[in-house]
């Protein structure tokens, strides 16, 4: 059941901080500006320039980089003439085979599934937006993005990989694969894409409402 709309006497642009619940008005943001809560400083909204274009471009780049990061080997180790190279999926398979299924599942979810989901959903939401066609059916996808976002930990994974590589560099020769660099670039691009997106765009574009 839909809640009735806000009180009509409420001025439009009224928002509540999601961290301290303070009611405040939403300011008009010039391109590049960010709105923060008046009381607790929580981030409220931003107005990135060329938001849709940027987000879409960066997300597409992120998708390509994600592909590269999964197809090619991440790192390789060379010891005594023996070389071992591993892709992300390969590493997970090894963990699974070793009997560490829960850990493999956790790692897989946080580095493979959720980032992929996040990317896919972003694209699903952004492409129609760019093309100017928005429908309420997009909303659940966006909710999915928001739900999944905290669980995509690719940047932590990269740092973890770096730590283990430094640990191993005493032991053997470390070879950084194409996927390693792709993943580093992926993190950067994803972060930029997140910053480039103004979520208010979704709701501010004229929506064809379908009220039952």
């Amino acid at each position, binding site marked *: 059941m839909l809640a009735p709309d806000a009180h009509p006497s409420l001025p439009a642009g009224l928002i509540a901080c999601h961290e301290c619940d303070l009611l405040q008005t939403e300011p*008009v943001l010039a391109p590049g500006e960010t709105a923060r809560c008046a009381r607790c400083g929580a981030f409220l909204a931003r107005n990135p320039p060329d938001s849709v274009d940027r987000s879409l471009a960066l997300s597409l780049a992120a998708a390509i980089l994600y592909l*590269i990061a999964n197809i090619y080997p991440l790192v390789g180790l060379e010891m005594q003439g023996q070389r071992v190279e591993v892709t992300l999926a390969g590493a997970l398979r090894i963990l699974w085979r070793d009997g560490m299924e829960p850990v493999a599942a956790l790692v897989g979810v946080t580095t493979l599934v959720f980032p992929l989901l996040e990317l896919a959903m972003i694209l699903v939401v952004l492409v129609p937006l760019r093309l100017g066609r928005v429908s309420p059916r997009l909303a659940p996808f966006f909710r999915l993005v928001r739900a999944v976002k905290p669980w995509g930990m690719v940047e932590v994974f990269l740092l973890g990989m770096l730590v283990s590589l430094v640990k191993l560099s005493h032991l053997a020769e470390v070879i950084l694969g194409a996927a390693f660099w792709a993943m580093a670039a992926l993190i950067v691009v994803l972060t930029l894409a997140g910053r480039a997106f103004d979520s208010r765009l979704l709701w501010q574009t004229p929506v064809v409402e379908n009220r039952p």
Partner: protein
Amino acid sequence: MPELTPSSLPAATVEKPRRFRIPLVWIIPLVAALIGVFLAARTYYEQGPTITIQFKTGEGLEPGKTRIKYKDVDVGQIAAVALAEDGSHVVATARLARQASRLLVDDTRFWVVSAKVSGSSVSGLGTLLSGAHVGLDVGKSEAARRNFVALDTAPAVTFDAPGQVFVLQADTLGSISAGTPIYFRRIEAGQVTGFRLDEEGKRVEVQIFIKAPYDRFVSADSRFWNAGGVDVKLGPEGVQVNTESLASIVAGGIAFLTPEGASSEPARRNQAFRLFPNRSEALKQPHSQVLSYVLRFSESVRGLSVGAPVDFRGIPVGEVTAIRPDFSVGATDLGLMVEVAIFPGRMQIHPQPGKTTYFGKDARSGDFRAFSDQLVTNGLRAQLRSGSLVTGQIYVALDFFPSAKPLKIDWKHVPPLFPTQRGSLDELQTTLMRILAKLDKLPLDEIGQDTRKAIASLGRTIDEAERLVKRLDGLASGDVRDTLVEARSAIADARKLLASDAPLQQDMRASLQELGRAAQALRHLADTLDRHPEALLRGKPEEKP
């Protein structure tokens, strides 16, 4: 409800410029896409051929890990290992680098390289640490090929090794196996690559590979022999110990040499040679000319064996081929016929001064017979001689005996009967026996008795003379007494000399006793020598009860 004071200003609308401007940010995905395409293209371009190799087992093959190496350089990797449908072998799929595609020709061979320790070589120890890898030997064919059957073991010889292959034929394999080294003047010159039984199962054919530059020393006349282990020979020449190398003692080995005077024209590929059991067998001359004779001995031929050499003043000129008793009718006593084979090729003859000839090549029956007769007339005989006093072996010696009885070669006998001479040891024995017989015949007892009687009567005579002199002493005067006194002292001296305990008598008796003992000892010696000729050297063997 408390009042909510709006503090917002009317929001100004921002016009988005509607020009079809592509923001710069689109460069980023473009770049990413380009990178992706570039990587994909590079991977695709660098992708080498995919081949399948059949192995007997998947041992050592790990999909995604095992590498293929050529001359120790990585050229590919095993991608997948699967069992064949009928389960009889394992099929491995391998991906090779692009540069390696020209290595995949029709006779290229693959095998699994793992640590191998064999008697003569240790290899591949690095694989213990790093895991097995697949070795590759590029063939010489021009035809490309993508499906291979792997070898079971590393090939003994790779295609690019310079050298030549030959075949050896042997009765038994002995200690030879694939990899057995082949030596030339104690240098390892090659190895056995394989062997198989011939169709009738009578001989073993051993394939060998002699590497360059030793292969040009293999001529059509080269001799190969089994040089493995330690070759100890106990023969008339004495004890001989022969070995090629430490490795060959353990692992077996084959050696080869081209004999002196043989042709040095290099042998052709896959030429067959006979594999002799040892060096001396191998280096015996090829005997195109073999003359057989038979020798008749009436003395013991104990110690003579088939194969014993026939020697001419130290040079082997033949060998004994058979020994049998003589059953010919009309023989005066049972003798032994020793058949010998003479190789005239060994002898260099000067039938005419200034002209040297090898009998093997120039002998014609008539000339040779005449020449042999001449030699025999000059005293050439065959004699049994002791070859080794240690082993008691004897051999046949040809030598000139100027004082020998005149004999002739009996050419009518088949094979011709060559005159013989009694052996020197035998002569010694015979002579000793004769001396002993003579000594035996001496009536030593009688002589002793006679001597004793003679001495006794002599003693009596001297006693009588003494009595006479005593009588005379009473009668005779001073001169006569002096003379008589002198005579008496002389007689006393004589008696002393002839007394039974007189030194002379004792000496004579002692001497006779000695002689008797000597004769006995000599007889014993002759007896012993007859039974154990080696006693001359070794001493008397223990008397067995």
